[in-house]
């Protein structure tokens, strides 16, 4: 059953994406459907509460950026969206997280993580070949089709194909940091997720590579919903459609990126984005 829906998703991703984002229309003019609806989310590490009553809507086919000072809970928040925090012992989630109207806390975690992919702060390719890295998600999910095509397709989507097409059998560790990070994006894209979570994906990369990843995020919007945690406010301003500002585990402000960075409503947001703290 699971593999059947999976196969359907894969074929649909091959269809040309007709929905183009017109750069002249802003995000608000085209109302996007909500992909993630988070209500009254609390999160606890043991007795310590890290997230307090967060309500947030993440619109489909848009980039939502989460900004805030270190330790404000933005990474923790992102990791609740594919339930990665469950790996850590003694953690607890309260509230509701709906993905396309379904409660993710009731879902099978394997299926959830296939729909909601993740890219981490530091590139973490597996000690395998480039090809095997991309094919990994397909293999463990029991995909029995032509892997070669999907590997190529995923590498193309991650804008890495041209650079690695002659070295597919080589170790992923032979790639540069930026290439490794794009490989990790290709690896996440291979299972055709609806949502891609990016946890400070550029913090270990140089500016040129960062620009490449941002360009990539822009292209991926057509087929995917993106949520990115970033320390870099310029990055949030450049690459996102919506921005959420978090402080001490609370969501302070959430609006269109252009609005949040020009006319923030909360004085704390203004203080943060003008560099008065954080």
């Amino acid at each position, binding site marked *: 059953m699971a593999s059947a829906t999976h196969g359907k998703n894969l074929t649909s991703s091959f269809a040309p994406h007709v929905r183009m984002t017109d750069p002249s229309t802003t995000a608000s003019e085209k109302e996007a459907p909500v992909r993630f609806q988070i209500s009254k989310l609390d999160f606890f590490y043991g007795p310590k509460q890290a997230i307090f009553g967060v309500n947030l809507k993440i619109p489909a086919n848009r980039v939502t950026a989460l900004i805030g000072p270190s330790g404000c809970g933005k990474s923790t928040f992102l990791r609740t969206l*594919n339930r*990665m925090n469950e*790996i850590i012992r003694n953690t607890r989630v309260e509230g509701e997280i709906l993905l396309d109207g379904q409660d993710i806390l009731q879902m099978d*975690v*394997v*299926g959830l*993580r*296939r729909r909601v*992919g*993740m890219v*981490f702060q*530091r590139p*973490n*390719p*597996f*000690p*395998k*070949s480039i090809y095997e890295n991309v094919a*990994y*998600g397909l*293999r*463990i*999910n029991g995909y029995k089709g032509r892997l070669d095509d999907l590997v190529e397709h995923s590498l193309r989507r991650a804008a890495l194909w041209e650079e690695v097409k002659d070295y597919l059998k*080589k*170790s992923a*560790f*032979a790639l540069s940091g930026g290439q490794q990070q794009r490989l*990790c994006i290709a*690896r*996440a894209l291979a*299972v055709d997720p609806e949502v891609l979570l990016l946890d400070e994906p550029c913090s270990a990369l140089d500016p040129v590579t960062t620009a490449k990843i941002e360009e990539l995020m822009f292209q991926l919007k057509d087929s995917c919903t993106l949520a990115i945690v970033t320390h870099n406010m310029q990055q949030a301003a450049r690459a996102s459609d919506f921005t959420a500002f978090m402080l001490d585990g609370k969501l302070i402000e959430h609006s269109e990126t252009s609005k949040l960075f020009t006319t923030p409503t909360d004085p704390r947001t203004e203080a943060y984005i003008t560099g008065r703290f954080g």
Partner: protein
Amino acid sequence: MIRLRLLWRKSLNAIMLSLTGVAAFAVVSVLFLILGYLLLHGGKSLSWDFFTKLPKPVGESGGGMANAILGSLKLLLLAAVMGLPVGLLAGVYLAEFGGKTFSFVIRYTTDLLNGVPSIVIGIFAYSLVVLPVKHFSTLAGGVALAMMVIPITVRSTEEFLRAVPGSLREGAMALGASKWKTIATVILPAASGGIMTGMLLALARVAGETAPLLFTAFSNRFWSPGWGQPAASLPVMIYTYAIAPYDDWHRQAWAAGLVLLMLVLLANLGCRLALNRRGSARSA
């Protein structure tokens, strides 16, 4: 005054540097002294016969230890087949699944088992395998050696698994891999080089054990077909031949020592080469 202090600091530095250097040199020279001594005494008696012939009856000179070489290999095979999988899986449990208290108990027990004198392991294997069937056997020797292989394998496997970065675990699980799939397809392959080296060291360690074999595999002056009969092994042969009053036997004991050491060194070298080649093939 300041100059004196500086002089003192410099000489202290020189003293400590030479002390550590001498210690390091001593460590290396012990191995080379043993190797040289073995070559000197055993090299002469080492001949083709040593590897192909059975021991001669008392009084006749010549003959070889073909049965002991094969016996040692069979014992090691048994120890590997019985000990390595148990050690590996227990190591995986400790590193990946164990809770706090239970893991502590296992880890502590493993360390204790590692510290049990090998002769005691021999007695235990004797009462476990030899007494019920009332005769010595290769199997009993293999069981004794396996009991020594397990704790070493457990601890080295655990250490190498723990050294695998957590980001790999997260990466695999974020793609929807279950915990077991993550371990089997990412964590274990990432640690495989270290784990295999640890296993090889465990086998090398028990290859030279004499005490646990004295009353399990015992010894044999003839071939030992199958697994149910007493079998000769190199360490026990060295022991028997070294305490015998014949010069020819002493020479053969030296030769056996040399062969045993060479086997261990070769296995070690071979494993390292194989791992290196695989490693470079991966990163080439």
